[in-house]
């Protein structure tokens, strides 16, 4: 009896070995010229973070003409380079790296592997590298639309913004755009906005400050508040959700998905459209025409979700009109980082 079981085990083991061997002769061998592979390295965090990582990953999955996609979740910022190298050594054709923080590691890898195309989400390219495309965004345009929406929704004539830190240029762009958009609709609007007093290390992870500050703005009559600053901004959104008759606007991605505590007020979000940007760049790479340097992705407002009925058709028409003008370049947001 015992012998029989042993024999069975041995056979099973052998069969599984053979099967494994079959499996390893992969029809999707990335080093082959016919097979087009795309790998994504996340910033610290998970691929299903409902934010940057997830948006980029959806872009990779949705790209056309790709034979194989794979991702690696970065657990520690020290592993950026090693994770990129895992894909590069496997002969991947395109490697997508997510987040401003990975810019340096991406540039280094690009120099080591000149035959691989790199797409850096949110990575501004100071000097163009032939095989790197930085996917960046005009945050001021998204902010402009958010500000216009806020000004049209406001009944008190006071709107606020609770922001991360002005040490980060995209945050400043969001703010300036927001104020420009609000003034475009109503030149006399009362704008109250504030940055977190702390440095980079704390400015985006302080929901308690965001909440207290949003309350201070609400107390002074603000009835629409733009929360732009990671978890700090989310704190503000959560506070506004508890207030009667006030709206809030999220940032970066559709925060209806990321900040459930804000469902009571979240009318929209000023979004960076990472998914279509990543798709477009992968398609360009496939065609052998990766745009070196900076590639400016689209921005826009998220859907109104539960507040769809509260936003009038007139407001929606104005917003789409503004969006077209911004895209065509006939309308300036008033944000000018150079001067």
């Amino acid at each position, binding site marked *: 009896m015992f012998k029989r079981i042993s024999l069975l085990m041995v056979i099973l083991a052998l069969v599984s070995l053979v099967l494994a061997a079959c499996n390893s002769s992969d029809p999707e061998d990335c080093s082959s010229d016919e097979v087009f592979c795309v790998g994504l390295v996340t910033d610290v965090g998970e691929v299903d973070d409902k934010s940057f990582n997830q948006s980029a990953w959806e872009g990779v999955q949705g790209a056309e003409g790709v034979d194989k996609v794979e991702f690696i979740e970065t657990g520690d910022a020290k592993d950026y380079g090693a994770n990129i190298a895992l894909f590069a050594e496997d002969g991947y054709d395109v490697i997508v790296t997510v987040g401003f923080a990975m810019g340096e590691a991406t540039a280094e890898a690009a120099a080591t592997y000149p035959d691989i195309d790199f797409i850096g989400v949110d990575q501004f390219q100071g000097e163009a590298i032939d095989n790197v495309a930085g996917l960046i965004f005009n945050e001021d345009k998204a902010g402009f639309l958010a500000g216009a929406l806020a000004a049209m929704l406001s009944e008190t004539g006071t709107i606020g913004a609770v922001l991360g830190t002005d040490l980060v240029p995209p945050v400043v762009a969001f703010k300036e755009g927001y104020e420009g958009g609000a003034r475009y609709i109503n030149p006399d609007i009362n704008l*109250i906005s504030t*940055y977190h007093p702390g440095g980079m290390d704390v400015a985006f992870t302080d929901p308690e400050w965001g909440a*207290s500050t949003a309350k201070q703005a609400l107390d002074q009559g603000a009835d629409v508040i733009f929360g732009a600053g990671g978890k700090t901004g989310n704190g503000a959104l959560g506070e506004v959700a508890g207030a009667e008759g006030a709206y809030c606007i999220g940032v970066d991605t559709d925060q209806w998905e990321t900040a459930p505590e804000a469902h009571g007020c979240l009318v929209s979000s000023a979004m960076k459209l990472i998914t279509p940007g990543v798709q477009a760049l992968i398609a360009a790479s496939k065609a052998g025409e990766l745009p070196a340097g900076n590639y400016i992705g689209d921005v826009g407002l998220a859907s109104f979700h539960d507040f769809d009925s509260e936003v009038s058709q007139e407001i929606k028409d104005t917003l789409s009109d503004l969006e077209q003008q911004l895209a065509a370049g006939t309308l300036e947001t008033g944000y000018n980082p150079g001067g």
Partner: protein
Amino acid sequence: MTSTTVTTAEKPSSRISGRTILIALLVAIGIAIVYYYIVDPTATTSVLAGTIRQATPLILGALCGLIGERSGIINIGIEGQMLMAAFVAFMVNVALGPIMPLGLALFLGVVSGILVGALMGGFLAWMSVTLKLDQIIGGTVINILALGLTSYFYVIGLTTRGKLPTFALGPLADIPLIGPVLFNRSPIQYLAIILVFVVQFALFRTVWGLRTRSVGEHPSAADTVGISVKMTRYMNVIIAGCFAGLAGAYLTLESVGTFERGMTNGRGFIALAVMIFGRWTPLGSWGAALLFGFATALKTQLDFMGLNVPPQLTGSMPYILTIVVLAGFAGRARPPAAVGQPYESE
């Protein structure tokens, strides 16, 4: 005999000059508040309401720090205690929310936060009293442990179904200025103010307070008259943990309504500065916490008014004032004599 010596040694603020300065300062603050209230009632009220709110976790943290230090245990793990309690209180609320009324779930969340704070306090006491470990290292262990555990077990996208609500205290809330600032708050904010006076009384007017201070100032003398130094320190650090736990529960269940990694954001350390600024007394610490809270609310207000004061400047104001106070304003700031020293009975 020992008791009287300790009591007088503990009250340097009873010097006439210090008290006069304090009263003058309070009168000046009062006049300033009334003046600004006449100029702009809405802004003044909201800044002061913001001050009370921002001060809440700081004063609770400072009470945690000073109850421990008064008995001779330095606690730099307040940050970790708060963070851990914030996390557990939040998770308990999320877990219990669907199966019981919201009020009860919130209450149990707060209670579990307090218990976790106490538990971490017990851990610190065990390290510093029983193991006689360096107390700074013990506190650091707690901070790292809390950051690691909460980050690991945190699940994105969870939220409470509600927060502890504000409730107005009847007609008191209708008093102009004072009403909305002091009598229209949420439960833990009221509790924090009450606890300041309770701890002040307990520390200077009860047997427990006397024993605590004697253990913190001169443990061998306390031991001689039959006070168990170990027991007192254990008890105090555990009670102190409850305060940090309450501060943590305040962050998730009353103020923000959700948990984020590292959301205490250094408040546990600012609480230590608040405690030193308040010269290891609850009332003094409350004043210091209000000053820190005011600085934050004022900075926001200056931004609202479009005055481009660099945030780093206004943000550093409380710390500059802390240094001014430490440098000798209104008496000397002196820690309990035996703080940080493990006690060895002879």
